[in-house]
């Protein structure tokens, strides 16, 4: 409770003295915490600001705001996963870290803070059917990799064929920002087909998570079919750290999967004389 009041005060202060132009947090709507942007124009709304276990990819909203208004300073509530996502988004040039101000809240429990506020500390317990045919989302990557080849294949295919192609995993993902998504490319994923091409749909997404996934677990939390996506992407992160020696989320270096270099090495295009005269 104390924390909540403290946060509201800081947000009001930040908006009033111009530290931030907009503050992204949660607002209480009929008992549900929904993402909301608080501004100076509606300062009273800050009173309805909610602190709860609910999570949403606020950093994704921030990237969208930043795209339209690159000069604005954006404040937001941040958990540990938010910090990692902000780091990745700024590495991938989707955000300017200097334009973001965060208020950190407790989340994942650790030795330093035992109390936690997160809607997805643990996945749901696997039922008997899932244990028999699929994968227990509680299992770690070593466990999942230890099964014989045929069993591994059949278990993953069981999980992937449940997909109803809601795109929830992609839409909630804080580090999914491509303008053109391979998952909507008709050559890879056929429109109107259910389940979506198994296992291409999920393997394409897994591949694109390399160097990006910050293990927030929002995808798995959003998945209506309980596909153990976090487990799959944890493996992705594990391979990336083994093969590329790159720790996604904590490293501040350019991702090894970035197709953009740091510097522009090409000469700028010469401006055609005709175009100058026309103008």
């Amino acid at each position: 409770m104390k924390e909540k009041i403290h946060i509201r005060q800081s947000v009001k202060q930040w908006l009033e003295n111009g530290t931030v132009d907009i503050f992204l947090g949660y607002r209480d709507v009929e008992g549900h915490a929904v993402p909301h942007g608080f501004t100076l124009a509606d300062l009273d709304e800050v009173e309805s600001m909610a602190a709860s276990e609910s999570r949403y990819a606020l950093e994704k909203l921030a990237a969208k705001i930043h795209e339209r208004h690159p000069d604005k300073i954006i404040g937001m509530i941040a958990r540990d996963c938010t910090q990692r996502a902000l780091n990745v988004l700024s590495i991938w040039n989707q955000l300017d870290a200097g334009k973001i101000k965060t208020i950190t809240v407790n989340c994942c429990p650790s030795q330093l803070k035992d109390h936690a506020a997160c809607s997805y500390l643990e996945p749901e317990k696997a039922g008997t059917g899932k244990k028999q045919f699929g994968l227990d989302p509680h299992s770690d990557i070593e466990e999942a990799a230890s099964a014989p080849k045929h069993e591994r294949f059949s278990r993953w295919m069981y999980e992937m064929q449940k997909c109803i192609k809601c795109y929830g995993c992609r839409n909630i993902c804080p580090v999914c920002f491509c303008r053109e998504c391979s998952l909507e490319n008709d050559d890879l994923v056929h429109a109107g087909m259910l389940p979506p091409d198994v296992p291409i749909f999920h393997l394409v997404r897994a591949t694109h998570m390399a160097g990006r996934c910050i293990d927030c677990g929002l995808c798995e939390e959003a998945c209506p079919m309980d596909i153990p996506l976090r487990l799959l992407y944890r493996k992705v992160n594990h391979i990336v750290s083994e093969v590329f020696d790159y720790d996604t989320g904590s490293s501040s270096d350019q991702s090894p999967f970035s197709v953009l270099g740091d510097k522009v090495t090409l000469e700028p295009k010469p401006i055609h004389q005709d175009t100058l005269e026309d103008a």
Partner: protein
Amino acid sequence: MTIKRITFLQELLSFVGLEERLHLSWISSAEAGKFIDVVGGFTEKIRSLGPNPLKSFDLEPWLKRMDSGQQTETGVQTSAAAG
């Protein structure tokens, strides 16, 4: 970088039970002999692995298995038999 990216894919495919089906070699246009060896060797390897289990992937066996509520053969063999 290519070798790392391919290693990444190989490991990922292996994790979901599709190992050994992706191969990378550097062969120059002057190395006809090497090309024959690599392609021939990989073809033999794939042949010994059998058809791609995904080719015969079919939802029906899964549904049947779930109807009966028991784990029979592995998914690969069941779907291959059904296909």
